[in-house]
């Protein structure tokens, strides 16, 4: 309650309207992964001097799942918490818009590849301690790799370590990774996962890890800027400054509280009343009222990893025909959909690699909205309204199909309805259907659907395998469209094989051009993500990688 007195006012009705609006608009979490932003009006006060001390209460709609990421399901709060308590070898910078991501030193002072790129050597800092005083060494790095790849631990992301054959301890502060071959993602793959404490966690055999979530909380030692002071399940996690953190002048804050508030309208109410200082994710509907509130600040940043589109089932008639898919794209007014749902916070997407990535093909332009052309294409393929009922037909079969969306994701549900209306104008009958999330996934995986509004997330390694490679058809991957194009398969493999990520650009451009012609997915929009904070919070720079990205530099105006 340290902050209750800060923002307090009487007689405002806005939050109420906001609250009820949110109940219907809840921006639901069915996106495959999370990303970062930039403050709205903070540049003006850049002259202020940071001060030490104070507490920040951050608000999240779900609880971190635990402190051992190799056994718990991943979600945004877990990822954000882990980065506050542990270190990685290096820290991926959010600079992937202009070029492949670069890495800042963290646990490792420096690193170098061998000339053939088959070994990668990290030189660790020698002044980093676990919170119990034990030094962090190369042994911890090796133990982390062993845990990540152990079958009994069964880490979700273990596939990223498939090409690493060994993590060799050269000396206490030098560790050398050996790879089976050289490829573009080596740095990303080797760096994935926080370094965990060998001396504390090796006491529990790997076979017991999957049932011991609480044990890791009880036996936690940290190396990051904060340590866990208390964990109240389903309520809040209190993070306390780690006095043994290797950067002696960081973090500036004494405490960061991660408060779990599953209902978005309650979360917004607490932001308004000053009980919460920072909300990691707010919906686009809240942007105007946050901007209008002088005690709040809004951070908006392109959610580069995610594009949303209508994915077609290519094994079903008539979606198996690329001409028909192009006609459908031409007949869907994507600009008006993006404008309606996102306003200035969104734009029409044209590729699975969004415009926020260096790998986006800048020569690509979204298909225009041209229903007349769409009609001509369909007529040439034999689709005519021969019985005069207003709906196109061919060989006695009407052009009618279902679009699936998942319950709770209002934007995608709304998009389905708008598409229904737009396609009706050229004589296509669309039935939007809303199903529970797991049901949607199962139908998509089993190929029991016509079309599905779906988000596609591509990480900063720009690996398109799981969506567009022919061997990624479920259950092996998430190519539920059943897209199969030998040239694209080859280009994807080629884009991953290069030694320097930059060298993949020609292959990535070509893939995007082919997908643009083939339209296995009609891309609808890419959008910004929003975080909000009280004005007392200074120097926060949330981004798509993490909203708490630079939390050690955050500070508050008064305690």
């Amino acid at each position, binding site marked *: *309650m*340290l902050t209750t007195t800060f923002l*307090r006012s*009487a*007689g*405002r009705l806005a*939050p*109420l309207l906001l609250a*009820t609006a949110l109940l219907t608009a809840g921006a639901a979490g*069915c996106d*495959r*992964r999370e990303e970062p932003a930039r403050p709205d009006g903070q540049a003006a006060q850049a002259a202020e001097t940071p001060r030490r001390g104070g507490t920040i*209460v951050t608000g999240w709609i779900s609880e971190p*799942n*635990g402190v051992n990421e190799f*056994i*718990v*399901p*991943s979600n945004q709060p877990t990822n954000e918490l882990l980065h506050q308590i542990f270190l990685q070898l290096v820290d991926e910078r959010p600079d992937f818009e202009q070029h492949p991501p670069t890495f800042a030193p963290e646990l490792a002072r420096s690193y170098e590849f061998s000339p053939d790129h088959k070994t990668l050597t990290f030189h660790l800092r020698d002044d980093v301690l676990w919170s119990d005083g034990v030094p962090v060494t190369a042994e911890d790095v090796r133990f982390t790799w062993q845990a990540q790849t152990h*079958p*009994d631990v*069964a880490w*979700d*992301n*273990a*596939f990223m370590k498939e090409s690493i054959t060994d993590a060799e301890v050269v000396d206490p502060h030098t560790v050398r990774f050996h790879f089976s071959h050289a490829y573009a993602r080596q740095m990303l793959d080797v760096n994935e996962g926080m370094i965990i404490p060998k001396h504390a966690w090796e006491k529990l055999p790997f076979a017991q890890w*999957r*049932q*011991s*979530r609480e044990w890791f909380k009880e036996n936690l030692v940290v190396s990051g800027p904060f340590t866990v002071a*208390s964990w*109240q*399940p*389903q*309520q*809040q996690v*209190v993070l306390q400054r780690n006095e043994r953190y290797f950067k002696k002048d960081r973090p500036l804050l004494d405490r960061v*509280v991660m*408060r779990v508030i*599953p*209902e978005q*309208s*309650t979360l917004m*109410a*607490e932001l*308004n*009343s000053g*009980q919460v200082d920072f909300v990691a994710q707010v919906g686009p509907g809240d942007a105007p009222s946050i901007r209008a509130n002088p005690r709040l600040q809004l951070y908006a940043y392109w959610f580069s990893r995610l594009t949303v589109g209508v994915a077609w089932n290519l094994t079903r008639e008539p979606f198996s025909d690329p001409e028909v898919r192009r006609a459908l794209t031409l007949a869907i007014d994507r600009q008006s959909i993006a404008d309606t749902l996102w306003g200035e916070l969104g734009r029409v997407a044209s590729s699975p690699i969004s415009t926020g990535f260096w790998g986006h093909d800048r020569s690509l332009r979204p298909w225009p909205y041209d229903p007349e052309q769409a009609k001509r294409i369909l007529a040439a393929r034999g689709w005519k309204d021969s019985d005069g009922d207003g709906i196109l037909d061919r060989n006695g079969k009407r052009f009618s199909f279902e679009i699936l969306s998942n319950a709770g994701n209002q934007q995608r549900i709304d998009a389905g309805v708008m598409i229904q209306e737009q396609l009706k104008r050229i004589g296509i009958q669309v039935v939007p259907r809303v199903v*529970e*999330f*797991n*049901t949607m*996934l*199962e*139908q998509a995986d089993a190929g029991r659907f016509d079309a599905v509004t779906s988000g596609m*997330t591509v990480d900063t390694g720009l690996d398109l395998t*799981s969506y567009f490679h022919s061997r990624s058809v479920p*259950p092996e*991957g*998430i190519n539920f469209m059943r897209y199969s194009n030998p040239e694209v398969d080859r280009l994807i493999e080629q884009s991953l094989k290069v030694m320097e990520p930059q060298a993949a650009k020609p292959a990535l451009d070509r893939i995007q051009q082919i997908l643009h012609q083939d339209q296995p997915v009609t891309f609808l929009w890419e959008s910004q993500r929003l975080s909000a904070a009280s004005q007392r919070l200074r120097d926060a720079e949330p981004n798509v990688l993490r909203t708490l990205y630079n939390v050690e530099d955050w500070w508050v105006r008064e305690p």
Partner: protein
Amino acid sequence: MLGFLLRRLAASLILLVLVLTATFILMHLAPGDPTNREASRLTAEQRENLRRIYGLDRPLPEQYLRWMTSVALRGDFGISWSQQRPVADALKAALPPTLLLAFAALFVEYAIALPLGVAVARRPGSALDHGVRVVSLIIFSQPVFWLALMAILLFSQVWPVLPSSLMRSLGYEQMSPGERLLDLLRHLALPALVLGVWASGATLRLVRGSLLEVMSRDYIRTARAKGLSERRVVWVHGMRTALAPILQIFAVSLVGLLNGSLVAEVIFSWPGMGRLAFEAVLARDYPVVLATTALAAVFVLAANFLADVIHALADPRVRE
């Protein structure tokens, strides 16, 4: 009487087994399984490995029998797949806050419904009666989440006197026992009031109806005729009879409040069983879903059993 109780107990147990079996089957019929998470790029091999770790690779009947025997013989609910810890631990953490909230709400409900119900039953057709009817009808027809949001708006924003989320304040560890109790009560206030006030509408109608019906009976007229005070007539003679149906409802309304507490738990960020069960369903965490269902079923059956006992005590005809 003992025979009656045993018969009821046996029926409850059979019902419990049926409920659990049905839940088990329904959960496995629902699409999805805990290893097909979104974004997961598990290879088929990894997926098999996970299924082995959590025993999902066994045939369904075997999974069912294993689970039933482990619960019945050892009281062991298994390991939660989404929480990587024993289900019993998850239940232990979530049950007390839910019970606390449900009993607090029950207290509020009856603290409003009993006196007000009696007051309006004594003056049927009065302005008070009409007023209470309209207000309670309006409140009871609102969705709980809406009442909850209004309460947050009023008492945490416009007039910020009560916290709108969690069970404790930040400085809880440094508080004295007295301050801790006060802190807990302050956090309990909004959810308990919202649930209690909401539920009191229907109970109030029941109290009024039951008492009105009793008050027209002959023995009440006798009691009045022999000159007892009206207070004594209503509270001692009238209420004793009128309470039987109310007590029966009492047990059932505890169950209703446990249901309503899911909404309160979500909106007020109150920890508890509702959220545990809800999140488990979304994650297809079968062991937790089964355990929470089992617990809820035990509650309902126990409440009904209790209601039957009360009824049997109050009315000898039921026992035969």
